[in-house]
């Protein structure tokens, strides 16, 4: 658990950070909260030449409102996301999921952007980003661009970020009014990764589910949008049987892994059960 030698820079602006990344070439690594990267370094599973620490860039932290979006700075700590009034009002699903990340120490060090850019399919937040149609704002040597969440997660631990690009902020379309949300996480100990997680946001009007957004954690090498479930719920009656029926479509398009914490068939079973529970909780059914 002794990391190899690594150079370290701590720029004060995104432009400087991009410059440092470009200069260092492909062996550079961006350091956000460090909650995944530092264990990897200590286990000597990676040997970056330079760490570019984003921790001193003030502009990357905090949450603001911009028209129909809530904009979360990539370096906003999980603990600040959970407590943010804008997030709680317009992106309750994000607050619900972030509150389940690891433990209080990790939540006070780890960042929203770091968790997304790490793109671990067992992480809780990528599924939320996908479910909420978030947009990733990245800055690189070629300037700024926006990547939809649906295109951001490319494969296991792989994103659409180009070399030299930094995830700066995440724009989340506001869900206002009749939306309510719940993240249902299934893990064995409080600090453990999700075996499966289901992020659900539901807009309910009287006895009807008008619209639903459902994202799945750890059901593929990337987060999965459960479109089949959403389609089955759109306009459906808000009752237990209907939700249970819709939840059976959770496994569509998934490719769950088999590993030490669960075999694929068990994960598929869990996805159905947890989708039913997440949607029911969000829609106040049962």
């Amino acid at each position, binding site marked *: 658990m002794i990391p190899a030698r690594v150079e370290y820079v701590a720029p004060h602006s995104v432009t400087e950070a991009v410059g440092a990344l470009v200069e260092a070439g492909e062996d550079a690594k961006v350091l956000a909260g460090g909650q995944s990267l530092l264990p990897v370094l200590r286990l000597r599973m990676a040997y970056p030449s330079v760490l570019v620490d984003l921790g001193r860039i003030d502009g990357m932290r905090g949450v603001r409102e911009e028209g129909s979006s809530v904009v979360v700075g990539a370096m906003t700590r999980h603990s600040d996301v959970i407590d943010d009034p804008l997030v709680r009002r317009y992106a309750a699903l994000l607050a619900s999921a972030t509150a389940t990340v690891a433990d209080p120490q990790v939540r006070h060090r780890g960042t929203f952007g770091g968790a997304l850019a790490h793109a671990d399919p067992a992480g809780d937040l990528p599924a939320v980003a996908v479910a909420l149609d978030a947009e990733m704002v990245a800055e690189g040597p070629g300037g700024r661009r926006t990547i939809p969440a649906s295109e951001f997660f490319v494969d296991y631990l792989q994103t659409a970020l180009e070399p030299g690009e930094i995830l700066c902020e995440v724009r989340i379309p506001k869900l206002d009014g009749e939306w309510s949300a719940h993240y249902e996480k299934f893990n*064995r*100990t409080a600090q*453990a990764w999700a075996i499966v997680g289901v992020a659900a946001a539901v807009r309910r009007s009287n006895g009807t589910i008008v619209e639903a957004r459902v994202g799945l954690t750890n059901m593929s090498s990337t987060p999965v949008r459960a479109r089949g479930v959403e389609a089955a719920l759109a306009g459906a009656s808000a009752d237990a049987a209907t939700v249970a029926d819709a939840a059976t479509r959770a496994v569509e398009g998934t490719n769950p892994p088999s590993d030490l914490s669960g075999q694929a068939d068990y994960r598929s079973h869990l996805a159905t059960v947890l989708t039913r529970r997440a949607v029911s909780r969000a829609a106040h059914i049962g």
Partner: protein
Amino acid sequence: MTELLASPPDVDTGQEIGRARRRKEDAKLVNGQTLWTDSINLPGMAHFALLRSPMAHARITSVDVSAARALPGVIAAFSGADLADQLGSLPTAWPVTPEMVSPPHPPLAVDEVRYAGDAVAVVVARDRYTAADALEAISVDYDPLPAVVDLEAALAEGSPLVHADAGTNRCYVWPFAGGDYAAAKAAADVVVRRRFVQQRLLPTAMEPRAVVVDPVAASGEITVYSATQIPHVLRLMLALTIGIPEQKIRVIAPDVGGGFGSKLDVYAEEVIGVVLAQKLGRPVKWTESRSEGYQATIHGRGQIQDIEIAARRDGTILGMSVDLLADMGAYLQLVTAGVPLLGAFMYPAIYKMDAYSFTCTGVFTTKTPTDAYRGAGRPEATYAVERIIDELAHELGRDPVDLRRQNWIRHEEFPYTTIAGLTYDSGNYEAATAKALALFDYDGLRAEQAARRDRNDPVQLGIGVSTFTEMCGLAPSRVLGSLSYGAGGWEAAGIRMLPTGKVEVVTGASAHGQGHETAWSQIAADLLGVPFEDVEVIHGDTQSSPKGMDTYGSRSLVVGGVALHLAAGKVVDKARRIAAHLLEASEDDVQFDKGVFSVKGSPEAKLTIQEVALATFAAHNLPDGMEPSLDSDAVYDPENFSYPHGTHLCAVEVDTETGRSTIRSYVCVDDVGSVINPLIVEGQVHGGLAQGIAQALYEEAAYDADGNLLTGTMADYLLPSAADLPAFVTDRTETPATSNPLGVKGVGEAGTIASTPAVINAIVDALRPFGVNDLAMPATPERVWRALHGGADGGGAR
């Protein structure tokens, strides 16, 4: 979430023993003023690091350390072959049979690696970072050999061999019997047979292992600082293993952050550290990383238990037979071979029966060596017997508590000699069980269970019971001798009355989190009649505490505390003679109460023990020929083990949709005999429960077929935290031990031993209607789910 429960109140009764004193040790611990081995930095100190085999089994064809040696900052680098002559072989202290296969155990592998993590080379560098870099510059060529992972396959004809020279993977066969089991079985109406698997566990002490060695070349003296439970045993073993004269070795266990048996060993790194320090003539340090420790520190458990119980239809147990396969791992560490034997005597537990047959076969595998882990042999035994009693109850259609009651030793039958030959001095299973049932609301929970079954509730309720006992207070030396253990089981204590009336207590029991400083102070304060605050307890250094057998097996209080009791008696006796002399009274007329010597019939004629201490120091006026000191030493060798017991009840809710088991309530009533400090007892019980529950629900050292440890970091090896455990309801009954003057029985392992079967019994109880009769540990949600859907035990789930 665990609620914050009120701890036992500290009430001043005028007596220290029995007070819930807050621990003396804790202010230092929580203020960061401890001295861990890793905090020790000596002038000129170098750091060493070990290159470990990535393969479970391979021939080493070459080791080239030259590139590592050439790196700036590297002081030395050696292969196993370079140091083989100096390192010798690591000791094992328990040759359980004369025929036991005891292969050489080189601290650095020379020709062959036998588990993933076996060390093959060492580098010494000016700092830890350089040492870690240098490891990557070492090149080793391995010629892979087949891994030996499965215990039964290891014993099969034609299996690859862990130690080719031994010609077998069978380390030993140790049979034991009382009565005629075959006859008992023939007479039985019901025979229930089960196979239970004790998965391997990774002991995870808060403080990792570490060692610092400081040599003095000119005099040949050497000081070894080690995060160890056993400074005294380590000193002896280093002398015997490396050949350093014993008087030249000083071993210091500074503050040690937990061990649970994993620091009850003589490890390769300790021997390597000594050899390197001597060779290089400078201090060296090594501290393990957590993932390194998961491979290189001993593992616990690792047994396959075939158990059979024979009974009459009316529930009377006639006999029991146990056939064990015990995973030794690749080598025998200090007491590896003997661990299952500590359980051998415990299978009959609290139950009366006429026949018992036991066989243990030790098996070598290409995995990390196993050794003692909290409970050592007794949790395994307790699990198997408490599980099969439930299976017998199910077979007979009986309530599991009722069946236990029918067969257990009644309180009026003590002392009772079991079929395994142990004589239980005392106990009251009826009282502990009655108290536990009342606290648990057993009848109410059974009613709820029935209602949930009736309405097909997706969340089912199960109730598990464990009425355990254990043998602890290790151990009568004669018994250890009869079991071929290499040493005795006595413990030493010393008392020094200082001129100012303050007291130094020396104990040979080396504390590493248990609270000895507090408990020993309470005992000394009462026996000497001095204030609690005036007592200082010295331990963990072979120079200041020269004699001891250290801390394991719930022995410290039961053996070491009694030694202190004897030492205090000697001090008081001598002080009484001096007081009589000074008071010009007959010794027989001088009475001692709460620190004051007084003359019967002359209440004004009195001296405090502090005044006697000062007078002894001055030595102006002592009885003729009396030595001017008020010190004493005592060594106590127990005549019997002690036998704590208790009744643990667990209610588990099983979500049949996901397979998740959630403990809803946990009640335990332990009887650990007389209690010195109820707060410490409470802490031991809580920690023990957490570890026992962890075996039932969370922890497993999983290996793949190639002998790779799959759970090599805390991300994969799941340790529960407070967030995952219920609020425990704990209570006690007190049946004092009759085998020692303090009446104490030991509490260090009780919670761990008792709790595992209570949890699994509860889950199986919840799942009976689904045809489930067993579950492999840990009972993960996936295993439970598979058991529900396959009707099997879920064993193949992972």
